[in-house]
């Protein structure tokens, strides 16, 4: 526990010092170095808790403000997320050390990097509602400053604005959530929350919905994900990796933590989560598929993966309410496993995208191509991460998706009524999003890294420095290691799930382990067979003549790289299939006339949630609150009076009708 406090201390000190120093080198040293040191130190207690399964006790620090209790503690759930946060942050710290070299503009926001890491760690370790909310808010603000690092750009300012609005609306729901719990228990301590026991079902459901909206916005559950595709591309790549890899997972942590307060869930909670999860997974990957911006595509793919995680949590809840421990274990277990997995491969993908942006200075997929030849390490790690995110064996993504699949299959064989329907829908949803993910990521890897360069910038890339590559190679290795040895990770996952469950040991645990070791056998078998066959063909081919020639093109006389399939043409057939859903706006200028001028074609699809939900909602709100504008006159005394009246009204309401 002391390690954790030291680690937070280091991060906060490096936050303050980075502000004070002037030179680029010092800034880089303090910011990235602080993150690396803090992560190494902080991951120790988290790993201890996870390997032993014994929660570390709660430590309360001297509080600066009366009523605010600064207490930190690590139970397996916190420790599980903390390992992810510190693990990825440490690696991103090394990456950014190299990445921020000669990046004066990005370095201005460098102090917020350690602050973001510190607040993420505090969010999962906090044991007091009020303290939690403060850490949560500072985390959102730190990431806001990082998102707007390049605020000279109009799009970035727009993205920052959307992020700020979304995150504060979400926090409002969380405030309501914690206030209601405070009113029930008279304290903000999590321990008291988890012992409230019998709240009325209506209140429990209200609390659940509040938590779902508040935490779900941060996590990026459809339709609350709208900020994500703006904020992730706007942020510098190493921050996108951190935000997508671990920051949005604090939302998942929040949902799981909230569930520990609310007792046995009714069936519809689980069904709602499965429904929302499928919606996020399928729509997220559909929008990812049609994106032409590399980082925006990755952001939408995060919505998909959050969807898979939420689907798993929903399955776990169905298991809890139906008293089926196996479903709970597989659902929660698969989700938690996927939380780590997604941190690994999405972190890696964003870092790879960062290398591309750094070298080519473009995120437009259709302008890239053929990067693999000059950037072999970036290309290879990106390829591994793409295969992993599609859930392909023998990589880590497969294991977590497999756990959730098996859970749903068991649901199909056992359950009845609506939960049967949701089990089937769960499998189909994940399978469909898996198929689309393959289309999506073959498009990215194929168009960005393979083939011929599609623009002049893309023709002259170079590999980035070893310092930048080292953490990426580590992440790629983890993808493979987690896939080949899932048993080790599963034990950590199992401790965490067990700490969440009302029942003790679960008999199914051993059967899952047996299955995992069978998967293990087949993966190793496949790998050995692959190597043997490869060697054999090398031996045979080695003696034969090998020629290099142009790509076979049906005898066409002068091929150019413009003739290659582009990202847009690659997804055209699926785009047509989904057109009724996506309603893309096309801007087509055909070449016409006897001496045709150059034509152009652009297609854009606006987000369904934005188009159908938020825009009308905000428009209505805007209209109905027009009268408020009249009060906005810039007179401080008028504002103060309004605030006073509001507080008075709330106070009176509280006295008379207190809930």
């Amino acid at each position, binding site marked *: 526990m002391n390690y954790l406090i030291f680690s937070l201390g280091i991060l906060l000190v490096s936050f303050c010092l980075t502000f004070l120093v002037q030179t680029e080198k010092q800034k880089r040293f303090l910011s990235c170095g602080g993150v690396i040191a803090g992560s190494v130190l902080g991951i120790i207690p988290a790993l201890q808790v996870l390997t032993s399964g014994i929660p570390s006790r709660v430590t309360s620090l001297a509080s600066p403000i009366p009523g605010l209790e600064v207490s930190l503690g690590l139970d397996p759930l916190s420790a599980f997320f903390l390992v992810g946060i510190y693990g990825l942050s440490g690696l991103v710290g090394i990456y950014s050390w190299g990445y921020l070299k000669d990046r004066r503009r990005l370095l201005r926001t460098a102090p917020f990097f350690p602050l973001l890491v510190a607040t993420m760690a505090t969010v999962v370790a906090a044991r007091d509602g009020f303290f939690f909310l403060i850490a949560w808010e500072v985390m959102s603000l730190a990431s806001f400053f990082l998102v707007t690092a390049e605020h000279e750009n109009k799009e970035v300012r727009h993205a920052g604005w959307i992020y700020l609005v979304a995150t504060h609306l979400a926090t409002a729901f969380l405030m309501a959530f914690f206030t209601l719990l405070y009113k029930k228990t008279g304290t903000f301590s999590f321990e008291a929350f988890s012992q409230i026991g019998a709240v009325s079902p209506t209140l429990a459901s209200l609390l659940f919905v509040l938590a779902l909206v508040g935490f779900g916005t941060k996590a990026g559950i459809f339709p609350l994900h709208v900020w994500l595709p703006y904020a992730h591309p706007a942020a510098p790549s190493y921050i996108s990796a951190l935000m997508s890899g671990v920051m949005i997972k604090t939302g998942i942590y929040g949902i799981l933590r909230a569930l520990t307060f609310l007792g046995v869930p009714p069936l519809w909670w689980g069904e709602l989560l499965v429904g929302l999860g499928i919606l996020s997974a399928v729509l997220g990957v559909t929008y990812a598929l049609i994106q032409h911006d590399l980082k925006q595509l990755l952001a939408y793919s995060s919505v998909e993966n959050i969807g898979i995680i939420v689907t798993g949590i929903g399955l776990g809840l169905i298991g809890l309410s139906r008293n089926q421990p196996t479903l709970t274990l597989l659902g929660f277990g698969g989700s938690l496993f996927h939380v780590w997995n997604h941190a690994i491969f999405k972190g890696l993908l964003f870092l790879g995208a960062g290398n591309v942006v750094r070298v080519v200075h473009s995120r437009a997929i259709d302008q890239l191509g053929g990067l693999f030849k000059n950037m072999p390490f970036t290309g290879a790690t990106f390829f591994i991460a793409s295969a992993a995110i599609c859930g392909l064996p023998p990589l880590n993504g497969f294991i977590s998706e497999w756990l959730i699949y098996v859970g749903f*299959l068991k649901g199909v064989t056992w359950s009845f009524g609506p939960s049967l329907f949701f089990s089937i829908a769960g499998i189909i949803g994940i399978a469909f999003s898996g198929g689309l993910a393959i289309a999506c990521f073959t498009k990215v890897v194929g168009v960005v890294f*393979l083939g*011929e360069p599609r623009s002049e910038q893309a023709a002259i890339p170079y590999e980035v420095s070893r310092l930048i590559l080292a953490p990426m190679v580590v992440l790629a290795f983890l993808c493979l290691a987690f896939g080949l040895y899932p048993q080790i990770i599963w034990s950590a996952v199992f401790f965490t799930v067990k700490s969440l469950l009302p029942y003790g040991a679960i008999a199914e645990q051993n059967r899952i382990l047996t299955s995992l070791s069978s998967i293990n056998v087949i993966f190793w078998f496949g790998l050995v067979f692959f190597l043997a066959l490869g060697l054999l063909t090398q031996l*045979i081919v080695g003696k034969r003549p090998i020629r290099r020639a142009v790509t076979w093109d049906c005898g066409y006389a002068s091929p150019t790289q413009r003739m290659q399939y582009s990202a847009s043409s*690659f*997804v055209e057939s*699926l785009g047509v299939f989904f057109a009724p859903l996506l309603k893309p706006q096309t801007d087509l200028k055909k070449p016409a006339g006897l001496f045709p001028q150059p034509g152009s074609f652009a297609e854009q699809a606006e987000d369904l949630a934005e188009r159908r939900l938020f825009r009308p909602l905000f428009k209505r709100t805007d209209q109905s609150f027009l009268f408020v504008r009249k009060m906005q006159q810039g007179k401080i005394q008028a504002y103060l009076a309004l605030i006073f009246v509001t507080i008075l009204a709330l106070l009176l309401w509280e006295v008379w009708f207190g809930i």
Partner: protein
Amino acid sequence: MLHLVLIVTTPPFFLGVIAKTKAFLAGRKGPPLLQIYYDLLRLFRKGTVYSRSSSILLRLAPVMIVASIFSSSLLVPLLKTAPIRFEGDLILFAYLLGLVRFMTILAAMDVGSSFEGMGASREASLGALTELAFFLGLVALSAMTRSTSLTAIFEWEGGHPFWNPALLILFATFSLILLTENSRMPIDDPTTHLELTMIHEVMILDYSGPDLALILYGASMKLFLFMAFTSSLLWPPTTANIWMGGGWLILKVTGMSIAIGLIESANARLRLIKIPQLLVANFVAAALGLAIILIGRGV
């Protein structure tokens, strides 16, 4: 052991059977039954030509494809039981084939040709739709037999319900998936080399020599697996005697091959626009099968 021998040696033979059937129906003599073996040997003895645009991925892909098809074959109960079986192995089976698709598409994109890009795009979109029906079919089988392992599914505890309408529907569904996944008529034409008429063949245009041999071999293995799988729905592997089992297996897969030959002789390739509709219809058929099973089970 016999399982391994069967899966390694027999698959190209059935391509010969299909070719013979088609030749017979067209009134030709056709190539010898073992022609594919000669082709493979000849290709293995040749040198190779690689595209200048390609990277190392093009060389890795054939080996990875064969390796993952081979690994997935270990999960299918060709004779009574599969060599490796566990709860939920049907998911691994589906995803190993997903890996094959992933590699095929990427290798096609690697050479930077417009034709192969087109094939890759078609494969990706049709693959996503086929996946739907495939998984729904697996769910239906799993719900019917209340088990989540391929071996357990094909054991049919309490007798094989041959005349169950759901099973017949599922057989039809899986047959269509078999044709789609293995690029047969009416989805794709495995014999033409015209760029507008195909999916699978256009993706492998730039392979030559031993690489092409591996790709062809892998494709025949995949076809064999799907035929064994689909025919096992109506005719499950029952006998414990592995030699007899092997004989039955070859017999029923030969039957499937002849059926495919018949279908290919009687049908023309569909227009590309029609194919997604057919696949969605297939998904609906699988859903119908599942509904029958669930209603029969008393939901």
